[in-house]
């Protein structure tokens, strides 16, 4: 039975109804509670698009026309991350399907439930290199949880139901269904009352309570415990329980990029993000702790740095749903396999109330050092990105209609967002963490905005990444002026790559300077109001104006060019071997801007 995020999909016996394969797709989507699909039509998927018209006319399912299929996957991904439901994207065969791949890989790497439906050439043309044919099942298999090629209409209903089941249950992921055109046209019997029977699929492994017991014993006698929490906490909806746990035993929390906001970052026990661009004190805490409680995370190389020097003194407890992640990068002393929604509540009563003042005091001292050397907290004369991000937090954190959703692209601004925006709510930050897909922000923000039309959604992108998917500005307009706010951190470079070139390649800036169009004029062409900001004192008014303006708004922050993200762990280095911010040679003069860091 579906356990989580499961629409109550009925298994009550029903009378099979004859219909075309194309209609079965929409009928199944209706049963799964899908309201919006993102896609782009084409020859091989046309029958399915044709069958959509009555559903769209009755307002049951809404189709969003994207300008590039990659963005269909990103929008479905944004929708899915914001709601926790399965996002659906649809594309035609050949180029349509291959264009999807980047978006699907992005979702799969970050455990986002997405179902992709693609058209395929008719069965009699399969394997003949027909027009717009590509081996989509083969191409997508490495980036999917599972995929199907449908060559018989009678298999279609069960495959559709299985696809949603697999995408949603257990560790979420991507399932692709490639449907031959003649199957879409063929008549078959539709029913949806199958009991899912997949002997090779174990989404919810049984929890070994003795492991939970062992974990509790280890935590109870820890002097320097630390929680390293990831996306899994959010997927299991265990933010509150995690907070309860760490408050009870006074355990500081470091998060991964996707774990941002698992506990409120303004909470005294929150140390923010760890890893490559994590704050120095967070990484030092990871290295110095004696019991590391990893929750719903997978020890990505960006969080561990050099593996053989990672958390050497610590006993490691790994709470994880996906067995294959346990022992993949780091071998834990106590693996606790199972759903966090089961293991964490079971752990809670076994944990003793503890105080760890000495340990917290030590971290506090490191934190002071970080404040001095890594965090920019002096007045600024020039427009620098961290300042913009902090102002964005000031302008948005009290937003009406719930906490704002910030969707970032990939690169320097993504790291600054993590460092300078205080995430006080679970699921507030949507970002491509695993795959690191540039161009993610705008389409994913559109998906998130459509899921929550009344919430404030900001897409924060660099000038490089924004230009990868800016064609989706058209979707904002076509979908009735979606109120997505866009902040472009425009520094004229592919900033993160430039930073690496500066540090590791003697400042040879090959291929990193970016010419950009006038984004304000570009926005105008899309009939989106826009502003360019060049001075620090203009930031707050511009943000306020953007928020006050109904509908979309774009701000082009023309920031200082060569600013680096500090601290930084060089790739392959231990996480406490940090490149720190050089002290400013001359303290900047007072610019008249109230420092409100």
């Amino acid at each position, binding site marked *: 039975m579906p356990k989580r995020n499961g629409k109550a999909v009925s298994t009550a016996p029903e009378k099979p109804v004859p219909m075309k394969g194309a209609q079965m797709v929409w009928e199944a989507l209706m049963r799964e509670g899908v309201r919006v699909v993102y896609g782009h039509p084409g020859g091989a998927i046309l029958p399915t698009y044709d069958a959509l018209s009555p559903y769209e006319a009755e307002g049951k399912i809404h189709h969003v026309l994207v300008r590039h299929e990659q963005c269909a996957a990103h929008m479905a991904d944004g929708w899915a991350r914001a709601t926790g439901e399965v996002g659906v994207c649809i594309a035609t065969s050949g180029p349509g399907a291959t264009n999807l791949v980047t978006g699907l890989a992005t979702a799969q790497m970050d455990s986002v439930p997405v179902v992709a439906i693609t058209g395929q050439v008719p069965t009699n043309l399969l394997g003949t290199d027909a027009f717009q044919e590509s081996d989509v099942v083969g191409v997508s*298999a490495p980036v999917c949880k599972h995929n199907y*090629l449908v060559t018989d209409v009678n*298999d279609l209903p069960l495959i559709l139901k299985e696809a949603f089941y697999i995408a949603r249950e257990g560790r979420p992921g991507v399932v692709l269904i490639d449907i031959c055109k003649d199957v879409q046209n063929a008549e078959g019997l539709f029913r949806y009352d*199958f009991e899912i029977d*997949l002997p*090779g*699929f174990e989404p919810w492994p049984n929890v070994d309570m003795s492991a939970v017991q062992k974990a509790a014993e280890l935590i109870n006698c820890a002097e320097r415990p630390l929680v390293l929490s990831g996306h899994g906490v959010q997927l299991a909806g265990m933010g509150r329980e995690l907070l309860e746990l760490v408050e009870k035993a006074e355990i500081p929390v470091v998060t991964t990029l996707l774990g941002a906001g698992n506990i409120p970052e303004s909470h005294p026990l929150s140390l923010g993000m760890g890893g490559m661009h994590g704050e120095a004190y967070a990484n030092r805490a990871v290295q110095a702790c004696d019991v590391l409680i990893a929750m719903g995370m997978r020890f990505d190389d960006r969080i561990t740095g050099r593996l053989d020097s990672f958390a050497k003194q610590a006993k490691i407890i790994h709470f994880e749903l996906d067995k*294959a992640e346990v022992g993949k990068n780091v071998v834990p002393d106590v693996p606790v396999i199972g759903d966090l929604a089961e293991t964490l509540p079971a752990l809670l009563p076994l944990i003793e109330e503890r105080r760890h003042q000495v340990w917290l005091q030590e971290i506090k001292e490191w934190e002071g050092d970080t404040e001095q050397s890594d965090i920019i907290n002096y007045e600024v004369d020039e427009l620098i990105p961290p300042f913009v991000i902090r102002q964005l937090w000031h302008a948005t954190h009290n937003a009406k209609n719930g906490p704002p959703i910030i969707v970032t692209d990939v690169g320097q601004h993504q790291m600054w967002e993590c460092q300078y925006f205080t995430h006080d709510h679970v699921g507030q930050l949507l970002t491509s963490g695993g795959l690191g897909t540039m161009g993610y922000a705008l389409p994913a923000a559109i998906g998130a905005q459509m899921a929550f039309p009344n919430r404030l959604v900001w897409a924060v992108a660099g000038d490089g990444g924004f230009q990868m998917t800016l064609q989706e500005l058209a979707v904002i307009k076509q979908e009735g002026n979606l109120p997505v706010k866009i902040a472009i951190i425009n520094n004229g470079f592919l900033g993160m790559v430039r930073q690496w070139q500066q540090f590791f390649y003697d400042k040879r800036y090959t291929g990193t300077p970016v010419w950009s169009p006038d984004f304000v004029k570009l926005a105008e062409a899309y009939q989106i109001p826009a502003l360019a900001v060049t001075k620090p004192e203009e930031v707050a008014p511009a943000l306020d104006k953007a928020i006050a303006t109904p509908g979309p708004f774009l701000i082009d922050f023309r920031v200082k060019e060569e600013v680096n993200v500090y601290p930084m762990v060089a790739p392959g280095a231990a996480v406490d071997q940090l490149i720190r911010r050089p002290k400013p040679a001359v303290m900047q003069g007072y610019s008249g801007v109230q420092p409100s860091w």
Partner: protein
Amino acid sequence: MKYTLIAWMRDKPGVLSRVSGMMRRRNFNIDSLQVGHSESPGISRMTFVVDGNERMVDQVIKQLRKLVDVTRVDNITEQPIVAREMALIRVSTSAENRSEIVQMVNIYRGEIVDVALDSMIVQIVGSEDRVASLIDLLDNFGILEMVRTGPVAMSRGQVEHKHRRSTAVWRAQANGRDATAAERFKTGGV
């Protein structure tokens, strides 16, 4: 160290490429891989020999189990097992050495399955060592052509017997009807 694994999977088109694709993607080293039907229609059985260390094999098993079509994976490295492979060897012969070769093949309990004037085909089934050893011997006479399977393996002694249903049977049941005889013995599937 070499590890022997057995995996059962639904016999569907593409399942072999799913398995081999996963192995390549994750940089696992496969020494040999044999695939064939199992006792249950619709379920294929693969025997892998994997070269690596304990951690790698642990990952191989876990990643295999993650594939939706793979229903079961056993690591039988530590168990008492029967492992056999087979080879067909075309060895060059002459009037003088033919009987000598026949003798050797008999010692190894191999079979001569084809004879030509200047060569013959030897078939040998046995443990990896025995096959290798006969090949070494025959090499002295000149091996013209050879094909050798990797090992297939089964653990010794009593095992819990589980009936596994074929894909076609499972589809039929899902569609609310009994499987036909043809479906019960169908090995393909969707």
